[in-house]
Structures are given as C-alpha cells and as structure tokens.
C-alpha cells in the first residue's frame, strides 16, 4: 500500500517549509507565466530572467499545497543557471517521470519505486517520483513545471521580438 511517506519525503517537506527562490522579478525585463490547477485552486507564478539564452534568475510566487509548492521550489533550484535547452530537458524528464501510463493504478502499489538518488539525471527531484502513486496529486506536482514551460516560451518570444528581424506576428 502506498503510504504517506511515499508521498511526503523529507526533502519535499523541507522545500515546503523553506521554499527556495520565492519572490518576484520585474517584468520586463523578466517574463512571468501564471498557472492554475483548476481542480484545487492552486495557483503559481514563475518569473524568469533569461540572459544570453540561460536562466540567470528564477522566482516563484503563488500558493498551493505541499506538493505543488515543493515541486516548484525544487524546480527553481534545478533550472537556475541552466540554458533554456537544458531546462527544457529537465522539464521533459520530469514530466516523463510523472506520467502514469506505465504505472497501474491498483495492484502494483507495492512495487518499489526506483527513487535512488542518481537513478536518472533528476537528482533531488527523484523524491517526487512517489507522487505517481497518488494520481490526483500529479497535477499538483506538474503545475510549476507547466508554468515554467510557458515562461520559457514567453522568453523565446521576447528575444525574437527584441531581435526585431522576425516577421511581425
């Protein structure tokens, strides 16, 4: 049976109690995207400062449950300093980990999750793997990431605009 300790790993609770990179950035030059979980009302803002194609600063605003807040906090530390391509790679890996298609919803509750550090390139983020056993919470865990995706998209649009050589949209 999937127990609470599968969900609320110590590192997750730590990020919930002490969220990293909380705050706002001035928009522009930064970009901001906002995400909502329509099921539970959680909302999140992701601020991105991108310089020379790399994330030089990231801030998280909004409010939500321990899973959405800690996942966003861990995300912010995972992508800070990374190039946009690298950040998107982490995003893709994370969302893959969060997809339930390979996991039965009933029956394989006892299958040990491969959440050893280093089992993938996700590092601390591996702690969130247990969320998959609680399908309703997957949307909580991915909220910040989907919002990051949007913020990255906005940054790319912004740099295109600034380059000024793209066709007018």
């Amino acid at each position, binding site marked *: *049976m999937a127990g*609470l300790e599968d969900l*609320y790993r110590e590192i997750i609770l730590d990020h919930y109690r002490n969220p990293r990179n909380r705050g706002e950035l001035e928009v522009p030059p930064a970009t901001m995207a906002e995400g909502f979980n329509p099921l*539970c009302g*959680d909302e999140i803002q992701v601020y991105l400062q991108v310089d020379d194609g790399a994330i030089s600063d990231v801030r998280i605003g909004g*409010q*939500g*449950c*321990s*899973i959405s807040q800690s996942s966003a906090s861990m995300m912010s530390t995972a992508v800070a300093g990374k190039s946009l391509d690298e950040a998107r790679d982490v995003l893709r890996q994370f969302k893959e980990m969060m997809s339930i298609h390979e996991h039965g919803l009933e029956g394989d509750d006892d299958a040990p999750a491969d959440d050893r550090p280093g089992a993938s390139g996700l590092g601390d983020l591996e702690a969130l793997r247990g969320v998959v056993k609680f399908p309703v919470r997957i949307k909580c865990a991915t909220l910040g990431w989907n919002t990051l995706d949007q913020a990255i998209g906005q940054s790319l649009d912004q740099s295109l605009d600034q380059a000024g050589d793209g066709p007018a949209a």
Partner: protein
Amino acid sequence: MSTAATVTSEATTSGTLDVAAIKAEFPLLQREVHGRPIVYLDSGATSQKPQSVLDAMDRYYAEINANVHRGAYHIAERATTAVESARAALGRFLGAPSAEEVVFTKNATESINLVAHSWGRTNLTEGDVVLLTMLEHHANIVPWQQLAAERGVEVRWIPVDANGRLDLSDLDALLDGVRLLAVTAASNVTGDLPPVRRLADAAHAVGATVLVDASQWVPHQPTDVTAWDADFVAVTGHKMLGPTGIGALWGRRELLDAMPPFLGGGSMIQNVTVDGFTPADVPTRFEAGTQPIAEIVGWHAAIDYLSALGIDAIAAHERDLTGYALRTLADRFGDDLAIHGPALAADGTVEDRGGTLSLAYRDVHPHDLSQVLDQHGVCVRAGHHCAKPLMKVLGVNATARASLYLYNDESDVDALADALADAGDFFAF
C-alpha cells in the same frame, strides 16, 4: 417499480433514524480503504447508493429493458410506465403541481443550461439583468456568463459577508432591472441556506423570474416548489442516493409551454417534414433522444428510499449531527480549526444551516489535509468546490469540505476529528 419500501421499514423508529441499519444498506459503506473502514464525508460531491437503487437498475436491465414511448409490446410498455411513474414520484417529492412540469435532464448543470438556452435566449436581451448570489456553484454562474457574452446581458451579484452569509441589505437596489434571479437553496461550500421564499417574493415584485438551484437542498430537506414560489428548480439525482447521469428541471407549466426546445432530435417532436418540425408538448419537448432509462428507474428507487425514511426525519438527523460536529470540532481544536459559514449559535444550537462543513485547519493546505485523512479512510473533498467567486470572498483558494448525510453518525465525526489531529501532528512544523 416501487422497490425500496421493504428495505427501510426497520431503519426508522418513531421518526428518528436508525443509522446503523441505514449504513448496512449501502454496499460501499461496508468496504475498507487503507485497511480501515471507510468514513464517507463527501456526499456534497455525490452520495452513496443503497442496495435498493442498485437492485432496481439491475432488475430494469434484466427484466424490462426496452426503449420508451416507441413500442407496443409488453416490455416497452413496462419501460414507459417505469419512466412515467418515476416522473410522477419525483414530482410529488418536489411538491410539483403536475408531473408534466418535470423534465428529465442529465444533471442540475444541464437543467440550468436548459433554462439559459431556451428561456434565456427567448426572453433576455441586451441590458437585461440576471441576478446571482456569491454563493453559487459554477453550474449556476457560467451559463449566465455565456449569455452575458453572447447577448450583452448583465450579470449582477448579491454579496456575502466575510463569513459567507448572504448580505441582503442592498437587495432592493440590486433588483433594479432584474429579469431573472438564479439562487442556490443551499450552499455547497458553507452550508448556508438562503431565504428562497423571501428572495422569490422580492424578485417577483419587480417582475423577475426565479430559478432555484436545489442540488444541495432536495437530498436533505423537504421540498415544496410552490411554497418557494419558484419558477424553475434544478435538481440532480446522484446527490440524493440516485445514480449519476440523471437530473431534472421543474418549471412552471406556462413558462415551459412557451419555451422552444433546447436539444433537437428524436422523441421531442410532434411531426417532422422536409420543411421543418413541430415540437412535442412538455415535458417531451425537452427530452430529445433516448433517455437514461435505467438511471431514471434507479432515481425512482432512491426517492422511494428517502420517502420511506421520511425527509423530515433525515433533516432532523442531519441537524443534530451537524450540531455534534460543530461542537466536537470546536472542543477538540479550538482556534486551530475554522469553519467557513454559519457557526454554532451562542446557546449551542444549530439553525439555518446544512451539514456542509468547510474547514481550515491551522495552515495545512486542504489538499494535504485530505491526503492524510484518506489514510484514515476519511473521505473529504479538497478544493474550490466549483465556487471560485465565493472562495475569493472567503479569502482562500481551497477548503477541505466534510459533508454529512443520512448514513453518517457520530462515529464518523469522531473519526474525522481523530484524523484531523493526526494531520496536525504530521504537518506540525
């Protein structure tokens, strides 16, 4: 197809409910989750179903399944009778003057959309006002906002105070220009019970039509659509022991008669030629296509079940249990736990309140709270309960909501309190 009468005779003794006997009649309430007996406190989202409802639907499929109003053979006639006797039973349960004023729909949401599309698009034009309350469920908000976007109709709101109670101090001014008042009879977030009759009288005085969203009322309290003096009443089967996928709209006969069809198709016509169609009379006019017959039969069994127990006895039981819950939670958690909505009266009595308790416990997020409660087998709903405008006034994004029904008893409330205490320990930072 009256099926429930035999089941419940021993479940009510002299007007009070024998909850242990009632619980035993709900198969789902016998199961365990995470190794503990289930404690189901989410009837506001959907109720559980007694065996008699499940049996009625099985028996329908096993013995009389046929399409209705279409065949002159024995089982088709039985099926038609089953649907029409369910309509009559529902009409009686709602206090409707005539069963023909009862239109089957998919759920309360569809009932309200039917009014918005058919009555609304016939009667409302730019500048007309639809008056809602801040207590409404999205089902009684979005259809009117759609009409506003399409027609330039103005949507106006009766406010609530910080505790979520309707504030009627400016009612007269708010009613200026109102063509439709659409109000919930019972809040699915705070348990507040707005004064429907008083609101209907005020609305009628300015010539407005009145729609009552009775989704959270009909399962719990005696209903009389004429005592409300309502014009339309929306109900949903699955919150009152019936199956999902079936609901109804009651409407005043002369209003329904004047309304065009909502969905077009089979059954809802008198005649069709290559040049056009003539719609059928009400209620058939609004029942296009094959109806969910088994669900209608199941809902009938649910209505029989509630009627056999007595809706007054159910309401009294819930009032007592709500009082017990409010006192227990206050005793055990004091200021650590806040309940949005009407509180206990100073003398400890509960007035004017449904058994819907929206909880805020310390600063534990409702989602986390419900997750820990789940480990105790306790089912509560966490979220915005499809009432985001209200949540904004309450100053929260979400609450954990426990909602009580006829099969809950003090042991369920105690289990909730124990689980809350455990959640407090788990998230004590």
